[in-house]
């Protein structure tokens, strides 16, 4: 049997360390493995015995790009277990903090990691020589997101100001007000960025994904809602583990999540947009129409436009939350630990992030379960790659490799989170 191996030893422009292996036997793709070899970090085990109140700060350490997502899922899950309901004003501040992370994380991925693929540049540095204005604007947007994190989170990376029951400190009106101007300017940068990415050449590719996202009665989802899918799933977050299961695969240190009935699914911007288009502002819907994306979009390469639209949305939402800011009477509500189980799911930039904690009467963690978005998308990414590799098998190996890497980046995988670089190996048989 004729065999061949193509290998990308270190996938670049993704978060964390991983590789891709393609097996080709008799001219057909026989196997695709998104191999994650970043060492497992055993966060779920090290949480056991820690106080529930520590979960937001411990789990924030899972990722330097999306620490707010970890804090939000953790803090909501603990509050769920302890029966704590937040004041609407505290809730609004949590949402504002999340807007900061969406702006920062999405912009980093769009400008620094993904855009070079579409324009044929090896990296953002070479892209900056030809499109300096775009990169400068990207840095300005990232700075705007950072400003929100710094004020509400206490610092930009691994914020430290979120606590069970609220925050340690809330900003004054005077502290928050200047950020309204920052967000208004950021919104214009985000629209310009959307226009830029919408002009990219997009491969003709579509798949019948099962999209999974949060769904809130009135809001574009961030912190809460039900878990819904494009094929009719509609469950409370507490039922998450009845619908989804994680499995171990030999080639990866990250668990892969799938539907219990079998099959893979897709979380992230495209899923959120398709399932929650009606929750977007009319202004963002109008931009989507102008830039050629409509709900029902199944081309993952176009997710870069949706990601940019979500940056526009997050800037608008932040402006609104700042304008409406009414400082809460206290930075946090009273917290009384109790025995029980708490679950939460929030929309990390890359897709839904599920946390569950079992707690004893003293509030110590007995068991923890964390399902990051990249674990949920890993199997879908492998399916995308199988189709793309089959289509492009006759192309030169370096082109095949580039196409595969670009397809992986469509989903902005955070490999650090999922186990917590990517290599491509193709074996031709």
């Amino acid at each position, binding site marked *: 049997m004729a065999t061949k191996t193509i290998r990308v030893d270190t996938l670049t422009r993704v978060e964390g360390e991983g590789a891709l292996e393609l097996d080709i036997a008799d001219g057909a793709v026989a196997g695709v493995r998104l191999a994650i070899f*970043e060492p497992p970090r055993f966060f779920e085990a090290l949480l056991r015995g820690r106080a529930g109140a520590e979960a937001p700060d411990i789990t924030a350490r899972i990722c330097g790009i999306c620490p707010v997502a970890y804090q939000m899922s953790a803090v909501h899950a603990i509050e769920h277990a302890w029966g704590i309901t937040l004041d609407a004003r505290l809730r609004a501040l949590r949402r504002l903090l999340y807007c900061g992370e969406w702006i920062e994380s999405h912009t980093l991925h769009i400008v*620094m990691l993904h855009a070079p693929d579409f324009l044929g540049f090896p990296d953002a*540095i070479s892209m*900056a020589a030809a499109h300096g204005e775009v990169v400068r604007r990207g*840095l300005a947007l990232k700075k705007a997101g950072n400003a929100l994190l710094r004020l509400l989170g206490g610092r930009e990376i691994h914020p430290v100001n979120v606590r069970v029951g609220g925050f340690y400190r809330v900003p004054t009106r005077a502290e928050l007000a200047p950020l309204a101007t920052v967000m208004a300017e950021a919104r214009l940068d985000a629209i310009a960025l959307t226009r830029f990415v919408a002009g990219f050449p997009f491969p003709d590719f579509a798949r019948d994904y099962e999209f999974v996202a949060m769904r809130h009665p009135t809001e574009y989802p961030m912190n809460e809602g039900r878990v819904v899918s494009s094929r009719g799933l509609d469950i409370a977050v507490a039922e998450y583990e009845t619908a989804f299961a994680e499995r171990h695969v030999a080639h990866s240190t990250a668990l892969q999540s799938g539907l219990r009935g079998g099959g893979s699914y897709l979380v992230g911007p495209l899923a959120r947009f398709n399932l929650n288009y009606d929750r977007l502002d009319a202004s963002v819907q109008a931009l989507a129409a102008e830039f050629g994306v409509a709900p029902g979009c199944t081309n993952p390469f176009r997710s870069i436009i949706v990601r940019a639209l979500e940056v526009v949305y997050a800037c608008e939402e932040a402006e609104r939350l700042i304008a409406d800011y009414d400082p809460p009477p206290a930075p946090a509500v009273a917290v009384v630990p109790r025995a029980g189980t708490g679950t939460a799911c929030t929309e990390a930039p890359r897709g839904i992030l599920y946390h569950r904690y079992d707690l004893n009467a003293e509030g110590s963690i007995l068991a923890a379960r964390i399902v990051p978005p990249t674990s949920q998308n890993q199997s879908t990414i492998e399916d995308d790659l199988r189709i793309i590799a089959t289509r492009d098998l006759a192309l030169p190996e370096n082109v095949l490799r580039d196409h595969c890497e670009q397809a992986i980046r469509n989903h902005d995988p955070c490999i650090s989170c999922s186990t917590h670089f990517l290599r491509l190996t193709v074996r031709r048989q």
Partner: protein
Amino acid sequence: MTRAALVIGLGNADRGDDAVGLHIARRLAARGLPGVTVAEAGGDTLGLLERWTGAADVVLVDAAGPAGQPGRIHRLDPSLGPLPRDLALGSTHAFGLAEAVELARTLGLLPRRMAIYAVEAGGFDPGAALSPAVAAAAADATALIVAELREGLADA
């Protein structure tokens, strides 16, 4: 006479020799050199472009990847050309120090004068202290940086 300068130590305090940039920054801060601002930075290397905005003289201090001589001190001057990739001024995140400096160069955002001190690491074990060779090098590098700041960074 010390000219106004910004020193940024980079690294992760909990990853063995990766913390050497932070150690050196703290030693420099303790000296209280007039006109010298000392800062520390963690993972957000892109944020450096923002942090050094407005500073004419910038010294960056980081750990270099292990290459057989733990504690070896490299001094790099970005004005002389692209930073060598083999020093592995890397990051497990998407953007390392070398990339941030090269991006700044492309965008015209490099400070007028910049020196990068990189101390070769022995290892990055979680929770480990600085290895003896690297701890010794931290003292030497601090002295070198103090001398350079006193003389003023050379013009590009």
